[in-house]
């Protein structure tokens, strides 16, 4: 029960649940830290957007004309959200504020709210799905170099911090030294690892890792996979097989299939989300490398088209630099109120 609660707890419900939790103080501190870290990760983005937006409004208010709308459009496009959503926001802003002198606060509030509805969708943001009993299996997929292995290490650290035992499955049997990389991480975060020599069948590694998690027993089993482009049909079929093999051991596993998406990715991210979802039914996204100058806005069209929520955000290179995604925090950090109200 305690474990469940702690896991489900989101930043907003931290206060209520922490009463029943034995280590309430540390958890509360952690929650704060998470927010701060997410904001810190997005700081660069915010700075860029803020300066530019402020340039738009040199005086108190400005008439909403075509030129101004183009500038707004440019800002939106620069977040990688894509032409479609940017156009949509632009049109709505136009309809709402046509011919008016606009206050910065008013307009940004509008854009923020619009983006928030897209990012939240109809249903409330759900936490990670967990197995009712036995180990919870997570399958991690993504294109080459998106940051799968590092994200798995961070995820494992997060789970370890919550007091769970973790088994890692080194399913990237293709790339040179990928297994070594994950082994190093496993040692650092204190997780067990199941490996196989390079070139062996990733499905068999997954099978053994899940079997190990059941036998031990462990709370969490995270399976790594080799990076692949979503257009490589045979490699995508290989992934489907990995999924199938996992389900043989635990019928409703994998409980989570996480797609690791590079925040620097552009519109190809949409194709990635589609390709991987078709193959292994992704349940969520880990948005990696958000600590650079990239904005990761491509998750907006992905969310809209595939109902695929972002679950975690990678904001640094350390094992602790993975935080739960909060749509409100994401959007707030994009157009932060504190600096907008100047």
């Amino acid at each position, binding site marked *: 029960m305690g474990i469940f609660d702690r896991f489900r707890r989101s930043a907003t419900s931290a206060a209520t649940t922490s009463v029943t939790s034995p280590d309430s103080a540390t958890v509360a501190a952690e929650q704060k830290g998470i927010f701060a870290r997410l904001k810190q990760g997005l700081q*660069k983005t915010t700075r860029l957007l803020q300066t530019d937006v402020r340039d738009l409004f040199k005086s108190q208010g400005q008439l909403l004309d075509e030129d101004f709308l183009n500038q707004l459009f*440019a800002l939106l*496009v*620069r*977040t*990688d959200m*894509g*032409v*479609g959503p940017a156009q949509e926001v632009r049109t709505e802003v136009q309809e709402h504020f046509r011919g008016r002198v606009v206050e910065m606060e008013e307009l940004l509030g509008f854009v923020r709210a619009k983006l928030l509805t897209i990012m939240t969708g109809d249903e409330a943001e759900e936490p990670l799905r967990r197995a009712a009993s036995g180990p919870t299996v997570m399958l991690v997929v993504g*294109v*080459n*170099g*998106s*940051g799968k292995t590092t994200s798995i290490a961070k995820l494992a650290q997060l789970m370890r911090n919550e007091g769970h035992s973790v088994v890692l499955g080194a399913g990237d049997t*293709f*790339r*040179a*030294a*990928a297994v*070594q*990389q994950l*082994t*190093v*991480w496993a040692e650092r975060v204190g997780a067990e690892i199941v490996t196989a020599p*390079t070139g062996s069948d990733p499905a068999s590694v997954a099978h053994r890792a899940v079997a190990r998690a059941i036998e031990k027993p462990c709370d969490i089993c995270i399976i790594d996979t080799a990076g692949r*482009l*979503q*257009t*490589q*049909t045979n490699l995508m079929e290989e992934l489907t097989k990995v999924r199938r093999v996992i389900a043989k051991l635990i019928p409703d596993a994998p409980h989570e299939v996480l797609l690791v998406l*590079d*925040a*620097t*990715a*552009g*519109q*190809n*991210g949409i*194709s*990635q989300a589609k390709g991987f979802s078709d193959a292994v039914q992704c349940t969520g996204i880990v948005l990696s*490398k958000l*600590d*650079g*100058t*990239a*904005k990761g806005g*491509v998750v907006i069209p992905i969310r809209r088209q595939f109902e695929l929520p972002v679950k975690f955000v990678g904001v640094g*290179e350390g094992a602790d630099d993975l935080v739960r995604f909060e749509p409100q925090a994401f959007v707030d950090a994009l157009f932060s109120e504190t600096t907008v109200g100047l």
Partner: protein
Amino acid sequence: MFESLQEGLQAAFKSLRGKGKLTEANMREGLRLVEQSMLEADVSYSVIQDFMARVTQEALGQKVLGALDPGQQLVGIVHQHLINVMGPVDPSLNLKGDLTVFMMCGLQGSGKTTTCGKLARLIQGQGKKVLLVAADLQRPAAIDQLHVIGEQLGVEVYSDRNEKDPVKVCQKAVQLARSQHLPVVILDTAGRLAIDQELMQQLSNIDRHVHPDQAYLVVDGMTGQDAVESARAFNSALELDGLIMTKLDGDARGGAVLSVKHVTGVPIKFIGTGERFDALEPFRPEGMAGRILGMGDIVEMFRTAQETFDQDQMRQTEERLRQGEFNLEDFRKHLDQIARPGLLQKMLGLIPGMGDLKKMMDGVDAERDMKGLFGIIDAMTPRERRNPQIIDQSRRIRIAKGAGAEPQAVNELLKQFDGMAGLMKSMAGKGMGDRLKMAQDIQKQGLFDPGGRLAKPKQSTGKRLTNSEREQHARQLERERRRKKRRSD
């Protein structure tokens, strides 16, 4: 969103067809479409603005050439400009006589280490020995990765697991190369974020102390708007000599290449098109321009075709076509060639103007349909296959039984074959350009609808006269008649 820019433009310029000059007013819609297409390809917004301004300047006032519609002409101008901006091509490695040091840098996960391997293989193929240097001391097991690659390629790898300073690792490696007379050194540096001052400093330290002859920036082909920022940071920390764009074997449109080129101004040397070490190709701006505009890439299509199709078989079929022969046996062979998973879609996607068709094919299980067709053809006697005209009612029923299909399916196949045979015969002996035009015509007629079938090419039924022509004709006859009458009088 846009499978084909060309089609969007055709719609935008419909009212203008064959009229006068390109003006600001009549280009506006077209330019907007070009811009949108480039945004979807992930070209940076500011770069597009700059680019479009120049294109507009050039296009303004140009006369629309007779055979073209304004849309085609505009695309031509944009396409040519793209090629100019991305050129000039320079895939040479500029190897010096005694020792050339390459330094590879880039963001995390852009594919530096793999590209190092590919480059080493390329240089080795030119008969020069290479020393790979593991200067990525950040990522766990990066050194192991390079060692494994070195083993696979038979290339020597230098690493020092006890040294914490990448500058020293590089210096020692270069010394080693000198003493062993190895002509080429490739430094694999750690991936970093563009805003990480400390790591960027480290990079320029290597640059200052090791003096690499060439510094290459490795860019992920899927990068979005951020490409400008990171390229700018790398370019200011280092003096870049070339770009290598990776992961272009997928469906990324690769617009980042334009952004990076725009910011750095250095030539794009190679593109990475696969995970194998031979998947490094010299950059070709023509292909890339088409890709960015979403117009497909004819050259790439032919390459795919050549790689996948049995060339001898193709030549035989071609020969038979030229003789005006095309029977069900050829039809089957032909189907056999294209009935490979995903191949048809890929090919169609590469043909300009065929984007829509590709979309239509997406939901269709072409392979299963193909199997059904094979079954029917296989149930025929050789004589029937060579001469389908002899297939009558009873033969049809027999074939259907043998193939486990309905007699209608046999009918369908024969009709389809009739259409295809006509098409093939008329295509035979024509040049590639004519054939593509025909293919596009077919698409326009909507005959490629997967549910429908090819119609038999219709014979001409002669010229029909308009009313005025008929009158004129009558008058002329009358005149002739009178003249004859007068003469005979």
